[in-house]
């Protein structure tokens, strides 16, 4: 009773205070937009989300600022659950990465990503197989031979278990019938450092995480896990060129809570289309060696569900091989 009265009073006040907006056909945010990041501070997903937030604010692409909030707990389980609980709230948006697929499959939090409302995919990030520049390994064949010879003594560094790096490692192991000792680290930067210090012998870092060490001549790329060669590493072959069907990329996209109205979705899609075309974003993507790959609408949702299925298969083979 009392709550209803309060709600009524609040609603009345809003209608009185904002007569213009109540009739406006086009939706615009009325309060700062909370940009939930599915990862902790400092990682690739976080850097990208914050860069976009700054671009939006600096270039006045939106009338309200976007406020980044990191909810990286439980590989993003916290963010997913938060977004689910915010159903229908038009002032929340989430920056995702591939844990968007894996976390709901691995953690019992009752989240189905098919319920979320997609906005846009801005880019995909690539994976590269790296070794320390001091190592004798110069080609993929030598790499495979080295892992076979050393067996479990060969250490692969990567991010936490069940996260992207471990999936790529599992793909490599399956394709070449080898076994690494997988050492998990807190994030890509830590992995790069461990490789530099020879604490691990190889990594599958994203180009942005290892690029400066590559330029300084401290690490050596062996192969790329993408469809095509990367512009920054034109001499490095793709896995496919080398005759192995190993393709894995990291998507960088944004989604809204379940039940977000169409006009709200349209507003955000439009906003991110502007971001995609902005020269600052183009330059940022180039600097971070991200592949720009804009996708929105139903095609994006289809892509999400397709990739979720792929991850489910991948996880299934991983648990099967772990049991052996």
């Amino acid at each position, binding site marked *: 009773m009392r709550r209803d009265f309060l709600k009524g009073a*609040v609603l009345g006040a*809003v209608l009185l*205070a*904002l007569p213009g907006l109540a009739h406006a056909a086009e939706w615009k945010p*009325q*309060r*700062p937009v909370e940009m939930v990041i599915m990862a902790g501070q400092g990682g690739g997903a976080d850097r990208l989300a914050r860069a976009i937030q700054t671009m939006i604010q600096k270039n006045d692409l939106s*009338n309200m600022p976007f*406020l980044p909030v990191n909810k990286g707990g439980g590989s993003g389980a916290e963010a997913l659950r938060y977004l689910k609980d915010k159903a229908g709230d038009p002032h929340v948006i989430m920056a995702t990465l591939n844990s968007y697929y894996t976390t709901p499959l691995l953690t019992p939090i009752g989240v189905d990503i098919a319920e979320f409302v997609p906005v846009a995919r801005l880019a995909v990030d690539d994976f590269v197989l790296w070794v320390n520049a001091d190592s004798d390994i110069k080609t993929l064949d030598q790499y495979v031979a080295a892992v076979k010879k050393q067996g479990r003594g060969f250490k692969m560094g990567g991010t936490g278990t069940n996260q992207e790096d471990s999936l790529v490692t599992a793909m490599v192991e399956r394709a070449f019938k080898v076994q690494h000792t997988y050492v998990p680290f807190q994030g890509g930067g830590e992995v790069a450092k461990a490789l530099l210090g020879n604490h691990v012998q190889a990594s599958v870092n994203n180009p942005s995480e290892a690029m400066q060490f590559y330029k300084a001549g401290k690490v050596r790329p062996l192969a790329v896990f993408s469809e095509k060669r990367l512009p920054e590493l034109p001499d490095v072959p793709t896995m496919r060129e080398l005759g192995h069907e190993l393709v894995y990329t990291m998507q960088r996209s944004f989604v809204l809570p379940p039940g977000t109205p169409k006009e709200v979705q349209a507003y955000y899609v439009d906003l991110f289309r502007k971001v995609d075309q902005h020269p600052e974003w183009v330059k940022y993507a180039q600097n971070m060696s991200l592949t720009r790959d804009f996708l929105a609408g139903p095609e994006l949702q289809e892509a999400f569900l397709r990739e979720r299925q792929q991850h489910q298969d991948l996880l299934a083979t991983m648990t099967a091989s772990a049991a052996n």
Partner: protein
Amino acid sequence: MHTLTTRRVELGVAATLALFSLYLMAKSAELPIGWVSGQGPGGGAFPFWLSAIMLLASLAVLARAWRGLTPPSRGEGAFIQVGSGPLLGAVVGSLVALLLAIHLVGVYVAIPLFLAFHLRVLGSHSWRLTATMMVATPVVLFLVFEVALKTMLPKGLTEPFFYPLYALFL
């Protein structure tokens, strides 16, 4: 005379800590707590064995307190000073009420009410000072957190009232 003596609290807390460590052990055991071959300890091992050490230490404290070997276990006086109880209760109660109110009506209503209670009722300060603090605190919080630091504070039902302010300041 007093039922809640320091000795009784000491014994009670040690027993509670022992039970809590048992709970922590059970909760940790949801993950492997043994030695995973080729990997070292499993995911639950670190919290499990630390909780086990905590259990032993709690039992040791309990035993020592029983025999009166720890200073608090010799305290036959009241754990809470005579006369402090009601005040302490009021403060803790006001904190709980503050948090509940934040969920419902947000910080900008809850905090002025909290200040009013502390300054006027507990502190017996003048209405003028109380009113000044009730107005100044939310204004400063808004300017520091929302405007300067871009951190949104919870507003509960009062959220829509802030739309014009956002349009003005952000």
